[in-house]
C-alpha cells in the first residue's frame, strides 16, 4: 500500500512539473502539449478503438518475442555456463550479434522474415536474447563448488546438478537479465515496426502521429502506452521473481 502511495505521489509530482513547464514555456501543442491535452487525446483514442487497435498488436509482438527470446536465451545460457567449449564456440557470434545495432539489423530481418508480424517478433526475440543469455551463463557458474562436489559424491548426474543446484543458484542473476530483457522487448517491438511496412502497432502510430498528422498529443499517448507496457511487464517479472527466488 505504501509502495503504491509512493508511486502515485511521484506520478503527481511528474505531472505538476510537466504542467509547470508548459505554462512557463507557453509552447505550441505540436512541440509540448500540456498533460490534460494529452489525457483528453488519450480518452478519444481509447473511445474510438484506435489505441487498442495498435496496442494489441504491439503487445502480442512483445509477449511472443520476449517468450521466444528468453526461452532460447535460458537454454543457451545454461549450455554456455556448463561448457567452456560451447562458450568459446558461440560467444563470439552472440557478442557480435549484440554489438551490431538492432536498428541496422531490423530492416534486414524484415526482408528475411517476410516483412510482417513474424519479422517483428524475431527482432524482439533477438534484442531480448543477449542480456538473458549472459545473465544465465554467469548465474550458472555462480553455483557453490562445495555443493557441487557434495552432489557429485551422491552420484548426481550433470542434468541433476543443473536442476538441483545450478539453476536455483542462478535464479537471482537470471531475473536480473529478465528485468533488463523485458524492457528491451518493448524497444525491440517499436524498432521492428519502424523497419517494417506494416500499418499497425504503437511504433507505427508514433510515426503516423508525428510525421503524418502532426498530432503530437497522440504521439504522447502512444509513448505513455509504451511506458505503461514496459512498467507492467517489468512488474510481472518482479512478481514472478518474488515467488521463485528464495532469499
Amino acid at each position, binding site marked *: 500500500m505504501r509502495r503504491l502511495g509512493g508511486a502515485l505521489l511521484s506520478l503527481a509530482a511528474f505531472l505538476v512539473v510537466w504542467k509547470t513547464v508548459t505554462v512557463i514555456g507557453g509552447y505550441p501543442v505540436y512541440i509540448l502539449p500540456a498533460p490534460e491535452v494529452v489525457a483528453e487525446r488519450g480518452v478519444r483514442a481509447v473511445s474510438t478503438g484506435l489505441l487498442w487497435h495498435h496496442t494489441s498488436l504491439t503487445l502480442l509482438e512483445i509477449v511472443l518475442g520476449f517468450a521466444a527470446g528468453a526461452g532460447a536465451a535460458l537454454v543457451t545460457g545454461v549450455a554456455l555456463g556448463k561448457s567452456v567449449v560451447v562458450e568459446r564456440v558461440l560467444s563470439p557470434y552472440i557478442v557480435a550479434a549484440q554489438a551490431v545495432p538492432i536498428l541496422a539489423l531490423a530492416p534486414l530481418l524484415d526482408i528475411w522474415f517476410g516483412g510482417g508480424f513474424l519479422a517483428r517478433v524475431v527482432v524482439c526475440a533477438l534484442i531480448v536474447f543477449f542480456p538473458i543469455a549472459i545473465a544465465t551463463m554467469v548465474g550458472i557458474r555462480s553455483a557453490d563448488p*562445495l*555443493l557441487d*562436489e*557434495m*552432489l*557429485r*559424491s*551422491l*552420484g*548426481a548426474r550433470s542434468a*541433476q546438478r543443473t536442476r*538441483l*543446484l545450478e539453476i*536455483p543458484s542462478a535464479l537471482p542473476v537470471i531475473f536480473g537479465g529478465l528485468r533488463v530483457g523485458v524492457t528491451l522487448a518493448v524497444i525491440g517491438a517499436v524498432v521492428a515496426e519502424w523497419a517494417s511496412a506494416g500499418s499497425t502497432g504503437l511504433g507505427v502510430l508514433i510515426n503516423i502521429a508525428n510525421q503524418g498528422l502532426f498530432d503530437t498529443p497522440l504521439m504522447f499517448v502512444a509513448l505513455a502506452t509504451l511506458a505503461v507496457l514496459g512498467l507492467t511487464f517489468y512488474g510481472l517479472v518482479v512478481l514472478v521473481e518474488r515467488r521463485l527466488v*528464495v532469499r
Partner: protein
Amino acid sequence: MTPRGSASGALGVTIDDVGVRFGVPGPGRVTALAGLTLDVPAGSFTVVIGPNGCGKSTLLRLVAGLLAPDSGSVRVDGVAPVAGDGRVGLAFQQPRLVPWRSTLENVALPLELAGIAAPRRRAAALETLERVGLAGAAQLRPRELSGGMAQRAALARALITDPPVLLLDEPFSALDALTRETFDAELQRLWLERRRTVILVTHSVPEAITLADRVVVMTPRPGRVARIVEVDLPRPRSADVGGDAHAAALGGEVREALAAAHAIELRPWAEQEGAA
C-alpha cells in the same frame, strides 16, 4: 553376535601404494599422497589423524570415488569406488546443505537422486532425522539451523542410505568442545547400532582414542601412514576415557607418533644445517 558385532552390511577398504599429485608438472606441482597403503577391515572404526595438509581429506575423496589416484589402487570390497555407487557415504567438514531446501529435503537428497518416490524418501528422512536427534527441525531451512544442528543434518544425509562405508571429514571440528563430546558419544552409539565401516578424519587425539578401533597417524605432505595404534579399550567408551591409564598411554603413543612424523619432515633441514 560376534564380539565385533554384526558387520554384515559393512565393506572393507584397501588402499594400496597410492600416490596423488595436484597441479601441472613443474615446480608448482604438489604431491599430496605418496606410497600410502592402508587396509581398513569391514565394520571397523578407523580414525585418521595428522597435521593440516597431510592429505587426509584427499584420502577420503579417493575412497568416495570423487578422485582417482595417479598411482596405486583404491578398492572398496575389491572394486574401485565410483562416486554415487551407493557403497560409500561422505560427510564433509562443512555441512554443505542446499540453502533453498528444508532440512528434510536436504536429508532426503540421496534418495531423491536415486529416484525413490517422495512419500518413501520423506518417511526415511524423518526416521534418520530422529536417529540424529533432529526430528523437530525437519521443516526448517539450513540458515535457521545452529552450527551443531546443521552438522547433524549433514550426518543424517550421509546415514540415510545406510552406506556400508561411512567417511567423516572432521565433521565436528567447527563445534565447541562440549557439543563435540556429545556428538562423539552419539556417533559411537550409531556405530555400535549398525557396525558399518567408518573412516573418520580428525585433529583431536582424545576424539581419536574415544572413537577408534585403530588410529592411523599420517606423515606431513606427501602423506603416508606413519604408524597405526590399535585402541583396545572396551566399548561403549565415555568422553573422559582419557582418565583411564591405558587410554592415556595410547593417547601418548599417538602424540609421539605425530611428533616423530614431523621429525621425519624436519630431518633434511637438520642435516643441511649440520653440513653448513
